[in-house]
């Protein structure tokens, strides 16, 4: 080796080798202890966390989707029920109105009937009054007529007999 005159970069040099060893081992020990494991561990834990989060998000999404369909089902049922109830209510209303109409008609008819009966009764009463009045009048008239006509005896006799005849017949 001594006889060969190699360029500097190819010549073994213990000093450079020694310092390279010291420097590199220092670097390696510090980095291996404090830097690289921290960095890789943290990045790995973060990537694990991201994976977990993704999975969780996926599950939550599917859950949400099922909840949504459930909600939609409930809503649809509610709507159907609502429509049914409305229909029923309408039918009930119609029937109530119809019944009311019928009842009102019947009531009206009854009232009319009663009014007629009352009118009839009033009429009868009026008629009776008129008749009694007419009878009283006629009695008075008859009294006066009779008082005038029965001034002579013969005629009185004749009249009494005739009335007797009439009533006994």
């Amino acid at each position, binding site marked *: 080796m001594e006889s060969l005159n190699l360029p500097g970069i190819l010549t*073994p040099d213990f000093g*450079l*080798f020694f310092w390279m060893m010291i420097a590199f081992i220092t670097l*390696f020990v510090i980095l291996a202890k404090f830097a690289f494991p921290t960095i890789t561990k*943290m*990045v790995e834990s*973060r990537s694990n966390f991201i994976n977990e989060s993704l999975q969780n998000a996926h599950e939550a999404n599917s859950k949400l989707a099922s909840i949504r369909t459930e909600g939609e089902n409930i809503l649809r049922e509610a709507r159907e029920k609502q429509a049914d109830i409305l229909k029923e209510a309408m039918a009930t209303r119609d029937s109530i109105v119809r019944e009311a109409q019928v009842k009102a008609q019947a009531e009206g008819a009854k009232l009319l009937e009663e009014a007629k009966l009352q009118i009839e009764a009033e009429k009868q009463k009026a008629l009776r009054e008129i008749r009694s009045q007419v009878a009283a009048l006629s009695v008075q008239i008859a009294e006066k007529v009779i008082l005038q006509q029965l001034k002579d005896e013969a005629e009185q006799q004749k009249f009494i007999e005739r009335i007797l005849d009439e009533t006994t017949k």
Partner: protein
Amino acid sequence: MKQITLRTLCLALLALLTFAPMQAAHASEGGGVDVEEIVLGHMADAYDWHITTWGGKHISLPLPVIVRSERTGEWNIFSSGEMTEAIHHGAADYKGFYFNEERNGKIYERMPDGTSVRPWDLSITKSVVQIWIVVFVLLAVFLTCARWYKKHDVRRESPRGFICMIEMLVMTINDDLIKGSIGEKHYRPYAPYLLTVFFFIFVTNLLGLLPVFPGGANVTGNINITFFLALCTMLAINLFGNKEYWKEIFWPDVPIFLKAYPLPIMPLIEVFGIITKPFALMVRLFANMMAGHAIILSFASIIFITWQVNAYIGSGLTVLSFVMMLFMNCLEVLVAFVQAYVFTLLSAVFIGFAHPEHESHHKD
């Protein structure tokens, strides 16, 4: 985010490129341009950090020299500036030490008997300073990042901006490269080492592309550095390999004459493979980074060579060379990443081989 970073980086490189030729120009004051000297000199390690040469004066950052004297057996610590100054003023040596120009300007010691020897040299050279700069940059970046995670609840927020970018890079390397190559079961203990290797090489490569301080030292293009990294990978592969792995090496599923008698050829090849795998890693990283630097420096040298011929050829080729340098720098940014990636990927693959799965074994 990354695209923006790349674009800013390219722009910065474009602005800084103009400095490189200036430096190179003064290296050749003697007359002719010595391209080999410029290129190898810029890539080599040095005892000081040369910043620029202005008006014939070298402006550089002196760095501490730490050498053990062979005569006295004592450690000497002094500034490289003092030594350069003393030798510049005519002294033959400084405390018995001198720069041996025949040996790449390394410090040699003159012994009393007239011979010169290479003393133990643990100087803080340019490359060492560059390595420590990279170490501090990486520590700052990743400890900031780690502190963010400690202060925040990851279940509530994720980082933004710079920390997000770092996290993305770390997780790309961790998940795609390391986990993919070694396998889900065994990758965890190796991840910090491989991440450190990746970011060390990547940042060193990138800083090496900057032509001025705090970058510019050719660290990953130096065989000592890649040798150390490859050695680490070799240890990581073989120290923790499981029983299956060693059985594959010494007693593979092949006919007996291939593994025992007359010659255990398969075990020999496999044992040789233990060496060649990291060796390939070492050479690949070294050669790629060295070549990139060499090409960029060569394009810079073209400018000075052609300007010495005449101004017309010089100005014409300057434009061409500038465009080519720009292209190479952009390419080198890509190479900086690719080489760091390849080194880490192959390390991970080899570590994965050392942990064969039982299922795959049964399939064979």
